[in-house]
């Protein structure tokens, strides 16, 4: 059930990126899709009653057997960590394109940017 709600969030972002005409709304739809995907990947690795994958002093002295049996999945967390920073870089690129288009055409509307053929 939480997987379905996360997928619904992704579908809302997809609807916004496909249907809307304002350029900033398209960027907002892409951002919502990125949040939904990161959330879904972390939810895949969750263990009920688990602990974070960091070993501290108490667990080191008590032996690592209990840590192994109750830790959550560290691999999706490593992949999502880089994905979050990459989404910030791509957001900067998208917003710079929006600013340039606004300065040249005076509007954010994508149906009025028809002069690609120059």
């Amino acid at each position, binding site marked *: 059930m939480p997987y379905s709600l996360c997928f619904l969030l992704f579908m809302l972002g997809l609807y916004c990126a496909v249907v809307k005409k304002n350029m900033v709304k398209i960027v907002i739809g892409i951002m919502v899709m990125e949040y939904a995907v990161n959330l879904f990947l972390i939810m895949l690795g969750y263990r009920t009653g688990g602990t*974070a994958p*960091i*070993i*501290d*002093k108490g667990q*080191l002295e008590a032996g690592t057997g209990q840590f192994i049996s109750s830790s959550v999945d560290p691999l999706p967390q490593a992949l999502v*960590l*880089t994905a*979050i*920073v990459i989404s*910030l*870089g791509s957001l*900067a690129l998208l*917003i*710079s394109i929006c*600013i340039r288009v606004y*300065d040249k*055409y*005076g*509007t954010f509307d994508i149906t*009025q940017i028809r002069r690609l053929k120059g």
Partner: protein
Amino acid sequence: MKGMTIIVKTISSWVKMLIFLFGIYIILFGHLTPGGGFAGGVILASSYILLMLSFGREFVEENLPLPLASKLDCLGAFLFAMIAILGLVFGGTFFVNFLYQKYLPGQPLELISAGTIPLSNIAIGLKVGASLFLVILTLSICCKDFKPNTPSDGKE
């Protein structure tokens, strides 16, 4: 980008060093506590952005001008590639953790442990912080003389 009132300027000049120190702590202890290079680098960039928002862009541009930030960015990426190539030279495989396996094992849960992982964290933190500061400085330079254009189609 103009600055803000004097209350904001005073508080931000006290707080900026705390944020910078916190960013350095998150980077250095990335192999023992949550954090790592990426989060620490973004915190380092945000301490400079706080200064830019409260004092104006010219004040920050004197201290950390655009070419210097660009060079720091390239230096961070170059250091990261150098650590990988040194792994090839000393260890035999690209990107192997040569410090942990041969020269300097260290104790677990100490600051000096885990070989090249803290060095990689420092390189990545430097690179990510300089990159994000560079892009927000460029965003504020390009729009400094913004005059709203008249819409060219005349349809509003």
